[in-house]
């Protein structure tokens, strides 16, 4: 029997005007979904809507590879920096549109630099490498690639380039499956 699965979202405690520019209380915020621009001060404008877009991308990776999740849990400041590094690493992006070099920022924290994306870059392999455990079971690489593409476009390191929820709903993953 075929069953439809519907998503319901709860817990609007931190919600608000989508355009608000909110500096979250970093010690209290569950930073496993925190966009990297909040952690590493890269001087990029971000708002609550772009934060939601980023979180959707992380959620998709988590659903795709569960129980090997992409998120990082905990509130330790070092883990928070590691999480920001992991997000830049999943994209293989070192230089941002405003000229800020991520590796220079990371060097100041004592963390390893991010490997820059090369011509043979494989997004799926790269995501799997950064998950908390190794993915088991039979996978369809082509379909994994579609979901990863959608997730990474929502998680873009440039807040202004993140797909809106509406744009994401039109992604080819939904027509190719």
């Amino acid at each position, binding site marked *: 029997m075929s069953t439809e*699965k*519907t998503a319901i979202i709860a*817990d*609007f405690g*931190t919600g*608000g005007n989508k355009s*608000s520019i909110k500096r979250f209380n970093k010690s209290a915020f569950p930073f496993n979904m925190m966009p990297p621009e909040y952690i590493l001060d890269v001087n990029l404008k971000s*708002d*609550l809507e772009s934060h939601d877009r980023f979180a959707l991308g992380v959620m998709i990776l988590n*659903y795709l590879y569960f129980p090997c999740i992409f998120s990082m849990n905990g509130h330790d400041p070092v883990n928070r920096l590691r999480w920001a590094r992991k997000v830049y690493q999943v994209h293989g992006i070192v230089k941002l549109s405003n000229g800020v070099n991520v590796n220079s920022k990371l060097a100041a924290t004592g963390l390893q630099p991010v490997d820059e994306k090369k011509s043979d870059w494989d997004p799926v392999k790269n995501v799997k490498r950064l998950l908390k455990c190794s993915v088991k079971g039979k996978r369809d690489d082509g379909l994994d690639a579609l979901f990863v593409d959608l997730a990474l476009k929502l998680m873009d390191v440039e807040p202004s380039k993140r797909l809106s929820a509406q744009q994401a709903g039109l992604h080819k993953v939904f027509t190719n499956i």
Partner: protein
Amino acid sequence: MQGIPNLGEELLKTKVVANRLRNMQKFCDSASNCSADLFVRNDNSPNSFNNYSDLARFVKSLLKAVEILHATGYAHGDLKIEVSFIFRSE
């Protein structure tokens, strides 16, 4: 706004759902453990994604929910798997 549900009513519904789930969460050690319980991926679990098309349908539904929220001028601010729940239609 045509086609957009009343946000107040939707929030009341989500509050009821959240209260029910809070009772479930009492059995969890932490939020991450709760999510593990809620999103077990295997063929025997009623909440599992058995295949890619199942997952695609759920993700599309999730994106639609956020699209509606953003269209009303609001943002959630704390989206994570622990606050999104899967419901099967009868």
